[in-house]
Every structure is written in structure tokens, then in C-alpha cells.
């Protein structure tokens, strides 16, 4: 008999990758990436950016878009099932809440893998004539994955605790906007004490600072260890939050 976790994960990833709605989301994300890429060559200001800076910018955008996709998928995972009336049958099935959450997490992971693969041609297109392209591809996987999946797990937890998709989605998006603010504010954030503290504990900042450090400054993994810890703590905390929330699920 197939493991229920794999069954749920397969159903979740199938809905994303094989349904018309899922592919349309991926199309929308690819259009955002394309517009950004075209701006990079057509805009005078952007086209004069150093190649490494452009790769860093694309990596940050991929992380933000992946997180956005994770927020939408995570929110839909439980609250969406509840609104569609399919949560009861799922809970009555011979699976534990933990298995349901792990299956949903599997779907999230599949969504991010597709998103990551979709971003690679863009990273190659902007970075192949510059420095540290291989590092960009590896570190995008290494640091963006816990950040993106963390957002997804956090929203799975949220959607288990609140009644409506809208509430969960809004909370998820506000959290994403808060944590992803360094993408817009850049280094100016680190000029104040609060900004430095926020930067030190924010997983999104950790990923962005790593991309900067590796791609632009050519620094090694050893320099990134504390940042990797921040992103992994985020991943584990949100995963525990999702598991715990599923046990306290509101029908």
C-alpha cells in the first residue's frame, strides 16, 4: 500500500503541475521574470549594472516569487480544502494529521522545485557572461529553499488555524511583505540598530545577504554559516508550527 504522505503529496503537486490553474500560475511567474529580464537590457540605468549585481537581483526576485507561490499554495492547503468542503473527507480518511501536513509539505516542495527549475534559464541568461554563475545556481537552491518552504509551511499552519482563505492569505502576504522588505530597502535597512537586529534574524535577509556575499563578493560557504542557520531555524520553526496547527485544526 502506498504511503499516505506520498499520495497526498502527489495529489498536491499534481494540482499545481498538471492542472490548468497551476500552469497559469507558473506562466504568470515566468512573465514577471521575463519583464524583469527585459527591463535589465532595455532600461539604461539597469543595463549598466554590473553583471554580478544583476544576478543578485534576479536571485532575490526568484526567492520573492517562490515565497509568493508558497504563500498562495500554503494558504490553500487547509483553508482551501475547508472552503471547498473537502476537508472533512480528508480528516475522516485513515491518515493522521501529521501525515496530512507532511503530504501538503511535499506538494509545496514540488511547487518550489518547478519554480526553481523555471528560474534557471533566467539566471543563466543574465549571469553567463559574468562571475559566479555556478555559485548562484547552487546558493539559490541552498538558501532560497528553506526560506520559500518556510513561508509555505507557515501558511499551512495559518490556514489550519483560521476559518477563511482570505484571512490566512492576507496574514501570509503581510508576513511576506515584512520579511521581504530588505529586497526593496537594500543596505539602508542595516544603518539603524533595529534594522541590524531585523536583518540578523530575518531569514529573507539571510538569503539576500548570502547572495550578495557569494555572487558579488565571491565569499565562501564558511562565511555564510550563521545565515544558513537562520534560514534552517525558520524552516524547522514553521514546519513545527504547521504540524502543531494541524493538531488544533478548526473545522
Amino acid at each position, binding site marked *: 500500500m502506498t504511503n499516505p504522505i506520498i499520495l497526498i503529496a502527489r495529489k498536491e503537486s499534481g494540482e499545481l503541475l498538471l492542472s*490548468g490553474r497551476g*500552469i497559469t500560475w507558473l*506562466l504568470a511567474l515566468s512573465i514577471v521574470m*521575463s519583464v524583469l529580464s527585459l527591463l535589465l537590457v532595455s532600461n539604461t540605468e539597469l*543595463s549598466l549594472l554590473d553583471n554580478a549585481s544583476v544576478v543578485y537581483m534576479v536571485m532575490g526576485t526568484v526567492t520573492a516569487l517562490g515565497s509568493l507561490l508558497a504563500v498562495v499554495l500554503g494558504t490553500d492547503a487547509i483553508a482551501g480544502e475547508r472552503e471547498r468542503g473537502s476537508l472533512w473527507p480528508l480528516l475522516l480518511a485513515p491518515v493522521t494529521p501529521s501525515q496530512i501536513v507532511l503530504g501538503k509539505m511535499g506538494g509545496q516542495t514540488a511547487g518550489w522545485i518547478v519554480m526553481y527549475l523555471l528560474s534557471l534559464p533566467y539566471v543563466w541568461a543574465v549571469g553567463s*557572461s559574468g562571475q559566479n554563475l555556478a555559485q548562484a545556481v547552487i546558493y539559490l537552491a541552498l538558501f532560497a529553499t528553506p526560506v520559500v518552504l518556510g513561508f509555505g509551511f507557515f501558511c499551512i499552519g495559518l490556514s489550519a488555524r483560521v476559518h477563511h482563505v482570505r484571512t490566512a492569505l492576507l496574514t501570509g502576504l503581510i508576513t511576506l511583505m515584512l520579511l521581504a522588505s530588505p529586497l526593496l530597502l537594500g543596505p539602508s535597512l542595516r544603518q539603524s540598530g533595529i534594522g541590524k537586529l531585523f536583518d540578523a534574524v530575518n531569514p529573507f535577509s539571510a538569503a539576500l545577504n548570502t547572495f550578495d556575499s557569494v555572487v558579488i563578493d565571491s565569499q565562501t560557504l564558511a562565511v555564510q554559516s550563521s545565515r544558513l542557520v537562520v534560514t534552517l531555524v525558520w524552516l524547522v520553526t514553521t514546519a513545527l508550527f504547521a504540524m502543531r496547527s494541524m493538531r488544533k485544526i478548526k473545522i
Partner: protein
Amino acid sequence: MFKIFVTVLFLLAAANPVLANDTLEISLQPDPANPPSPQMGDWLKFHSKIENHSSNDAHGVVAWISLIQVDPGKEQPVDLEDWSAHKAVTRSVLPVAQQVGVEWPMRLIQAGSYRVVISAVDRETAHVMTSPFIGFQVRQMPVVESGRILPVAFGVPSLLLILIIWRRYRHRGIFG
């Protein structure tokens, strides 16, 4: 004798670019803060002074900046469209012995060897008056190549769009 006269005249003109019947004297200096070895994307600034050293007021003074690429095989005047938003200044009257200082900022868009020069005319003088030129070299910087971006930017969404259309028609049984 004539050849010697012409040579002397040419040398004098070369040594002092201000011709005897020029009403305006134009100087041109690079900003001290300019990078010593500029590269694409850097900003340069030039300062010029346009002085009326004739015995009459100059009317309708127009001064403008020109940029010329001088790389072998690529000699050409450069369209300043992307390089500078500050391409010319005008003065309705420039009184005798008065001068006007002008700052010319410039963004370096392409690598190469360049000469920059300020030219000016007024209503009374029948020829263009120019400053001495300043040469500078712009270093290449690795930037994004549009040749790779375009296929990806149009190709990836197109593939997904084809996938969506194919799925839709497959469900309707058109592709079997």
C-alpha cells in the same frame, strides 16, 4: 615663404585655439573628482567657462557639448541621448568681459576612446567657437547581454502558453 607663414599660423592656432576674431573664449576642465580610470556606468563631470572677451555684448549665445568616439575604425560623433540630459545652455546676452560657468555631467554608456568639446555660437559671429578638447577612455564592464535574455524572456512563457493550449485542446479531443 608662404608655407612657413601657413605653418606658423597653424602652430599658433593649435597652441591657442581661440582665434583672433572669436568673441567668446571657452575653457573646459574635467572635474577633479572624476574617476582616474572610468568604466561604463560611471559619471564624469566637466566644467567650462564661456567668456565674452570682445568689445561688444554677445547676443543669443548658445553653447553645447559634443562627444566624439575616436577608436580606430569606430570614429563617429556620439548621440548624447543616454549620456547626458544637459546638452546645451543659452544666454540671451553675455555682456562684455562677463563669463558664464557651465557644468556638464555625463554618464558613460559605452566603452571606448572619446573626445569631448564645448562649442558655442552667438548672433554676431559668423563661425563656431570651440573649447580645447578633453580626451578620456571608458573601460568595458561586464553587463547583461541582450542576446541571451531575449530568447529566454520570450521562450519560457511561450512554452508554458503552448502547454496550456495543448492541454485545453487535448481535453477537447482535438489532439487525440
